[in-house]
């Protein structure tokens, strides 16, 4: 079990080495960076046994490390996505400044996430949690142009969450006298009712912040969009899942024992639903791909939260499967944006158009990722969506399912906007020179895209570890009962058999594709996208008629009232109010020495007057 130590030492040492290797040469730096992440990853899967724990006592506190199946499931997300993103980063960071800083924080966040998963006690959990927070914060301010204080906002919200968690941890400690998670779970039923309610609330606040749950999500758009894209894929794909990880543990181990737990579940599920809906609406409004994806991440996390919150087996399966899927497709999409940013220098839909022929592989990955995101069969996203709906319907969440449905239908709008904005539209001279991104960037994206496609028909690959994880948390196995390698069941006994569906889709598609391309490319002539007739006019060489501004405006007008006010504003107003109160308060320090002296006497006399009360 010392492998775990070794892994963390590799991470730490690698982080520091990478930081300083930049002085010796950038290639060396890349190599060390990759070696660290890939080495630790392979070591983890090769040398760490599941359900093998070890303890040690720093500072008189017993800490336990080890991984169970549930953590192992998430380690797939963290290390899998982490490794791919690391490969991608090498290409992405080529020629950029402050690579050492980037790599350092990258490695640290991966380490912290892994640390969270192996922590079996609250203290190391919290420590890694915070390392994760600040390393990601440092990434958010990486660009150094944090004018809107996005990093600060991120950190403040994270801190609210972290402090809530710390409070809960300490409360637990005062009952159990240890910090072990296992002891906490055991002691939970014996606590007083108010603590039984408060402790989960505090924990859920912490996890809700990281999982960008409404109304704690306001940090997310800024933070996701302003960190470097190579990292955002991990940030949104894996880091936010840590919130889900914690949430599931709390929901399963604590709230399910609580008679009032139903209120928690419902509230959380509805918050998830609202997050999904509002996140989607705001995503549609964005003109910047990063922002769009950021809001989309929020929305997707909303689905996941809803899934895990309703708490049935199918719901958990759905939520966790979606979590994996989200890691895949959002990781890919952020990588796509990163590639485009690297090649063109901008991520604004209104500026970049018509890249499909210049960056075909990027487009291919983006296409698959978007299909998965939209939940359209036959890709993996559908599996998750299907399970989520079935779970909601079979557990009597009728209104919620409609809300979710609304959100995922509306998501088509931004999905299309994303693909159209970058890849479709007219090809401009300005982007003529744009080339496909380097191989280190393309390969991870394509790999993930293909994996998504595979998952669409063989979801068992992921459902199996999820099942193991759930069994670890105390559920009965759902194998053959809710899922098989490529068949999905709901609890009413209905099923979707994925393989024949996939085959038919592919067959039909190929058939008609052949019909359409009958004479092949040779027979037809490619014409410029300028060679069109738009309302009877043919656009000139320098005219760009690509429809990119005010995309989906009518829809937004229809939902206008909901989007009138951002939740952000309430927070801002609250903070402003607080600050002006502080401003008022600090005038106590008038600057006049005599006044201070008078304070002393006021203090003395007041204390003397009330001495019988006070002492």
């Amino acid at each position: 079990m010392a492998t775990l130590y070794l892994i963390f030492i590799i991470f730490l040492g690698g982080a520091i080495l990478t930081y300083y290797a930049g002085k010796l040469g950038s290639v060396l730096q890349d190599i060390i960076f990759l070696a660290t992440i890939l080495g630790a990853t392979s070591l983890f899967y090769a040398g760490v046994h599941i359900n093998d724990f070890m303890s040690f006592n720093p500072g008189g506190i017993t800490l336990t490390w080890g991984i169970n199946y549930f953590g192992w499931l998430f380690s797939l997300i963290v290390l899998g996505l982490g490794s791919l993103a690391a490969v991608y980063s090498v290409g992405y960071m080529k020629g950029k400044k402050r690579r050492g800083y980037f790599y350092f924080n990258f490695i640290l966040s991966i380490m912290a996430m892994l640390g969270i998963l192996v922590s079996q006690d609250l203290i190391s959990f919290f420590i890694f949690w915070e390392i994760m927070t600040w390393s990601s914060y440092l990434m958010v301010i990486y660009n150094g142009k944090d004018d809107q204080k996005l990093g600060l906002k991120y950190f403040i919200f994270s801190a609210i969450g972290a402090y809530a968690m710390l409070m809960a941890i300490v409360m637990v400690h005062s009952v159990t006298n240890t910090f072990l998670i296992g002891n906490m779970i055991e002691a939970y039923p014996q606590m007083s009712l108010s603590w039984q309610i408060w402790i989960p609330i505090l924990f859920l606040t912490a996890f809700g912040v990281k999982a960008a749950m409404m109304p704690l999500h306001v940090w997310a758009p800024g933070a996701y969009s302003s960190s470097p894209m190579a990292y955002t894929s991990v940030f949104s794909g894996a880091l936010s899942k840590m919130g889900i990880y914690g949430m599931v543990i709390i929901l399963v181990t604590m709230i399910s024992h609580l008679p009032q737990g139903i209120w928690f579940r419902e509230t959380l599920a509805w918050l998830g639903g609202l997050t999904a809906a509002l996140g989607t609406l705001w995503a549609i409004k964005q003109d910047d791909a990063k922002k769009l994806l950021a809001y989309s991440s929020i929305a997707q996390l909303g689905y996941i939260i809803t899934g895990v919150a309703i708490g049935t087996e199918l719901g958990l399966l759905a939520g966790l499967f979606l979590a994996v899927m989200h890691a895949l497709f959002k990781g890919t999409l952020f990588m796509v944006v990163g590639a485009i940013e690297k090649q063109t220098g901008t991520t604004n839909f209104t500026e970049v158009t018509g890249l499909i022929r210049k960056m075909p592989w990027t487009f291919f990955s983006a296409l698959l990722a978007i299909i998965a995101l939209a939940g359209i069969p036959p890709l993996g996203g559908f599996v998750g969506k299907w399970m989520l709906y079935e779970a909601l319907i079979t557990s009597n969440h009728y209104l919620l399912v409609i809300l979710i449905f609304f959100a995922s239908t509306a998501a088509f709008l931004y999905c299309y906007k994303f693909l159209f904005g970058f890849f479709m539209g007219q090809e401009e001279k300005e982007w003529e020179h744009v080339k496909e991104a380097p191989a280190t960037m393309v390969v991870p994206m394509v790999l993930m895209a293909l994996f998504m496609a595979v998952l669409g028909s063989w979801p068992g690959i992921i459902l199996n570890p999820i099942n193991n994880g759930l069994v670890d948390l105390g559920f009965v196995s759902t194998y053959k009962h809710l899922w098989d390698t490529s068949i999905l069941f709901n609890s009413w006994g209905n099923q979707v058999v994925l393989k024949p569906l996939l085959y038919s889709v592919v067959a039909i598609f190929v058939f008609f594709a052949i019909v359409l391309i009958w004479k092949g490319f040779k027979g037809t002539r490619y014409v410029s996208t300028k060679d069109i007739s738009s309302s009877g006019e043919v656009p000139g060489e320098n005219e760009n008629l690509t429809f990119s501004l005010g995309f989906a405006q009518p829809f937004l007008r229809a939902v206008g009232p909901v989007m009138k006010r951002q939740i952000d504003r309430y927070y801002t107003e609250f903070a402003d109010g607080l600050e002006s109160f502080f401003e008022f308060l600090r005038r106590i320090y008038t600057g006049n020495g005599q006044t201070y002296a008078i304070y002393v006497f006021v203090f003395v006399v007041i204390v003397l007057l009330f001495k019988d009360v006070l002492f």
Partner: protein
Amino acid sequence: MDNALFDLLDYAVYGTAILVMLIGIYGALAKKSLLKIVIGLSVSDSGLNMLIVAIGYLKGGTAPIFSPGYLDGTNKLMVDPVPQALVLTAIVIGFGVTAVALALVIRLYRHHGTLNIDEIKNLKW
């Protein structure tokens, strides 16, 4: 002399000391001139020192000095020497503080051209 007057006198010693002290503090708190503030602090020190010495007093006691003539007449009551020793220390310390205070007043006057404490508040909030 009747006892009541004695009692009153007893209190008068404490009373005077406390009054002097309070007057000094009043000066330090209410006067605007830095010099007066320093004087006030000084005065309150004096009052305090008086108070301390007064505590050590014992009725009928003599100074705690075993001068050659004293040792012969045995068992004479002596006042408590400890407060006197303490007062000595307190006085010296008070002197040191006052000296520093005056130096600061000089500095402040040099820079601000005024001794009014209300005008010397560049540092605030």
